[in-house]
């Protein structure tokens, strides 16, 4: 029986820039930052109230995960804003939206009342987009 999700990956164009975005702008906590040899790094972060779920900031690089030009294709898709990797929650959407905007974060959609709830859509430094909802 599956009991929980421990790791989830976000594919990023540049790990240093993603660190700045997720840690310094979004306020996520660094869970593990392990240098793995020249040019390689295992970097996971977590939201302040969900330390048990590690979000892996996974660089898109040629290697065993991306073979035969797949890395370049993936980078292009991410840049184009193809992927929406998840839904984040906050306590107050209007306040969080204003704060993120003040920090220069780009929104595809401002807080909007939809039939399914109140949500905004923001984009990370790579081009991945996320829904941001308000805790019910």
């Amino acid at each position, binding site marked *: 029986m599956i009991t929980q999700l*421990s*790791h989830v990956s976000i594919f990023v164009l540049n790990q240093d820039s993603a660190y700045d975005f997720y840690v310094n702008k979004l306020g996520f906590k660094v869970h*593990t*930052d*392990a*240098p*793995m*040899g020249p040019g*390689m790094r*295992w970097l996971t972060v977590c939201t302040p109230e969900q330390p048990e779920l590690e979000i*892996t900031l996974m660089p898109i690089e040629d*290697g*065993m*995960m991306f073979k035969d030009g797949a890395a370049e294709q993936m980078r292009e898709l991410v840049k184009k804003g193809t992927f929406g990797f998840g839904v984040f929650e906050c*306590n*107050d959407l*209007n*306040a969080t939206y*204003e*704060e993120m905007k*003040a920090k220069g974060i780009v929104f595809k959609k401002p807080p909007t009342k939809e039939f399914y709830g109140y949500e905004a859509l923001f984009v990370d430094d790579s081009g991945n987009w996320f829904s941001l909802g308000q805790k019910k």
Partner: protein
Amino acid sequence: MRIPMKSDFPKIYIYKRIVQAKLFIDTHFDDCIDLNNIADEAYFSKFHFIRLFKTIYGKTPHQYLTKVRIENAIRLLQKGMSVTDVSFFVGFTSVSSFTDLFKRYTKMSPSAYQRQFMEKQEQIKTDPLQFIPACFAEQKGWTQKSNFQ
């Protein structure tokens, strides 16, 4: 044409000012700021400001300021700064009040936290695979120690 009333805009206007005050705390936590400074920043009366801030962030401005100071203390302890230096650097006026509040937030003393963090960093350095799911390590070609050392 109807002239817009003040009540057409209140929410976003208030949010902007409260968020501004929150960002003020985030960037001036190490200064000797008090509630009046923060309320001034938001152009509110002190009591109106406390009520609105708590409604939005679930904490009074003072509780939030303490939280920001402790979080920054954690960041500095992780960099190896001494407990005494950290306590003054983040805006506390006494080491003992810093230590008490730190314990209340993290359930351990600043020095115990620093020791535990440094031990984890040492483990990450010597045995990083302990912290990486095997499937990812395999895909990255890190399963042989010689690949990353």
